[in-house]
Every structure is written in C-alpha cells, then in structure tokens.
C-alpha cells in the first residue's frame, strides 16, 4: 500500500541488514542523496548495492562504502578519479565487485521488473565479463546469457509524485529510476513536489504508482 512518509529516516527503515538495495542516479543526476544519507544514519549493514558507479568523493554511496556497510557492489563503472573509498576497500579485499556492462545492468534490472527469467545478449560476448557464463550463437552472433537483478529495496529520486504515486522525472535524472522502481520489492522515492491526483497528465506519467511504495518530499 502506498505511503506518504514525513522523513527520509522513516522511509529507509524498510532497509534491513543484508538487503539488496538499488540506488538510482547516473553521476549526480537522479542520485537520491537524502535517502542515501538516511540509510547511512540508519545503520543498516551487510548490503548489496546496485548502482551504476561505486561512489564518488566523500558523500552518499562513497560514505556507505567507507563505513563498511556494503558487502557487494553490482555496477558498471566503479573506478573514477574520485572513487577512493571504493578503491581502498576493493584493494583491501573488503568489498565484493560484480562488474556488469552498463546495458546489461539496465536490461537485467528491467528483466527483473518485467518477469523475465533471463535473456541472451551479444554485449560482452568473447570478453572476460562473459567468462563462466552460458553462451550460444543466435542468428550468427555470439550471445551471453544474463539473469535478472532483483532487489529488496529501491531508493530513487523523481521530480513529482501525485496522490497515486505516479512519477515524473527531469531530463537525464530519469536514468535508472523507472526500471529500479519496477525491479525492487519495495520502492522508496524522494521527490521535490507532491501534486494532487489528477494533476499529472496520464499520457506523461513515466513510472505508474503500482511500482511505488513510499514517497517522501525532500525540500
């Protein structure tokens, strides 16, 4: 049942130790920084985190990693100029990494939401990221079998929500939000604005409310 929640702290109480947590965003666009900060405060640990990156600088996901709360990262691009907290944990053998081509990451998340048991894709065929995976030749092209990525929780950021939990996003901040909302059992959304039901044009809803569990407005 959809809930409108007053504080990010109450919203992230749904995250338990050992949870798999998807976190939206690509770069800073679409990162639910306030929810991530609340997750840091919540103390939840032993997390598997799904995000495109593995934290940047000294904020958000990078701090979760620094504090040793992330057991495993599933991401496409961990290494960046300012991913020092991940780099340190990785080199110390204190964090597990599942490196996934970005398109496979997106498609595997989408597959989880869409009830697909697995799919074949040419991406990664013949590379070390396909090692140990099932492959087959389809229509003359080598393809790799990839499986859905499900999550217990999704933390995402949208621009507006209406009373039914329908969401719209803004520009490239949309990125992983819609597919993560569909792939997680429990989706928590921070929005800039809550509008009355009926205020969003049904043609323009990007994430229907069926995928949303908790909404919190962030100033």
């Amino acid at each position: 049942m959809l809930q409108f929640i007053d504080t990010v702290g109450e919203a992230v109480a749904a995250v338990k130790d050992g949870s798999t947590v998807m976190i939206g965003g690509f770069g800073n666009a679409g990162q639910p920084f306030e929810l991530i900060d609340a997750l840091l405060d919540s103390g939840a640990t032993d997390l598997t985190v799904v995000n495109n990156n593995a934290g940047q600088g000294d904020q958000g996901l990078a701090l979760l990693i620094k504090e040793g709360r992330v057991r495993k990262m599933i991401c496409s691009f961990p290494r960046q100029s300012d991913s020092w907290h991940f780099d340190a944990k990785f080199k110390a053998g204190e964090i597990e990494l599942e490196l996934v081509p970005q398109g496979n990451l997106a498609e595997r998340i989408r597959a989880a939401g869409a009830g697909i048991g697995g799919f074949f894709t040419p991406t990664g065929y013949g590379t070390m990221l396909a090692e140990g995976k099932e492959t087959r030749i389809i229509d003359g092209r080598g393809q790799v079998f990839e499986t859905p990525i499900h999550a217990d929780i999704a933390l995402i950021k949208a621009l507006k929500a209406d009373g039914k939990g329908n969401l719209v996003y803004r520009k490239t901040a949309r990125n992983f939000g819609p597919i993560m909302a569909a792939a997680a059992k429990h989706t928590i959304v921070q929005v800039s604005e809550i509008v009355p039901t009926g205020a969003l044009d049904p043609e323009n809803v990007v994430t229907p409310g069926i995928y949303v569990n908790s909404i919190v407005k962030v100033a």
Partner: protein
Amino acid sequence: MSIQTSATPLGRNDLAALVARDIAPGSFVNLGIGQPTLVSNYLTEEQNITLHTENGMLGMGPEAKGDEIDDDLINAGKIPVTELPGASYFHHADSFAIMRGGHLDICVLGAFQVSATGDLANWHTGAPGAIPAVGGAMDLATGAKDVFVMMTLLTRDGASKLVETCSYPLTGVGCVTRVYTDKAVFLIGPDGVQVRETFGLTFEELQALVPFPLVPFEEKAAGAVVGV
C-alpha cells in the same frame, strides 16, 4: 457444517459482490473479459482499487456512455471505458511487464476448468477445427500474485468444472488460488482445496458434486481479504 453462509446458490451479481468484498483496499487488479467484469460494479470508493487493462492503462474507470465514448479509450474487451484521476497510459510491453512481473495483486478470470492443484483451462476447448485465441490469458494466469476464478461450479451437463486434472488445454499450471462459484468458494493451496463457504448446499452435498476430496475451511488458514 458451519461453513455454509447462504441458503441458496449465488447469482452472478451476488458472486461479483462477494469477490469485490474480498479484495484488499489499495489493490491493483485486472478483471478478465465476461463475468469478472461485473466485479467492478461492486468495488467501493473506500477500497481505492486501481484497475489495470492489458491494452495499456492503469486507473481505468467505468464503461463509457454517450458523449464519454472515445474510440482511443477502450478496455481489453474492446468496450469503451473512462479514465479516472491518477490514471496512466503505457505501451503494450510495459503493460504486460506489469502483469508478468508480478505487480498485479489480483486478477479475476473466467474458466472452463480448474484442477485440484490450481491448473487453469480457460482459453481453448481443444475441439477439432476450433480456431484458438489466447490473448492475455496466459500472462495474467502466470503473472498475478493471486488468480481468482469466477465460474459456475457445473457445466450445463452437470459435470464439475473443478476437476482432478484438466481435460481442456491449459492456460497456466498451478496458478489459481481461489475459485468463486455459484455453489461455493474454494481456496487452493499446498494442503489441497479448502471450502470456505457454500451456498444453498452442505459441505457433504458439495463434496458429492466434486470428483476429488475437499477440505472444510479452517479458520487458521487463509482468510477472506486478499491483495496489498
């Protein structure tokens, strides 16, 4: 037996009202073509149920009348319908992702037969020369969290549609969780087929109509209201 709740068999509308009462507030529901459509007449505003139609919409309203009719706004049965505040439109793959991804709390379907283990047959008689048509039935049967069937218990020839094994071609395997009929409500689970209530006959009279052993409902088991 104490499970009898009505002195007479239930008519289609009473049955639809019963199904509607059993849907938890806030649920997302898909109502199949035909008899299940009647359920929408008995959903209350307080229940805050959101209806999905497979052809690309959440927040479907009642059938459109007169000036409301819009050729671009129809349901899965191709009947003109209306749009409620908070509705949304999406394309067919996104619509079936909602169904197949396990996001619908309940779908309500008609059936030719339901088996003791919840197999559903509702799309094809298998008769020689019959032209088959499946539509979205298999996706709904396989994808919804709970699949409710509404049907008469007996065929016109008096045979039970609740069967040990379906003789008609299957729509889905082990997918039906409840069967609402004119004579009884059945809950299908790992422990067999429980009879939640009977209408106009005793448990023993009902058992005589159904070709496999039924189990009287136990209060500790699954209750009435299902959904979110």
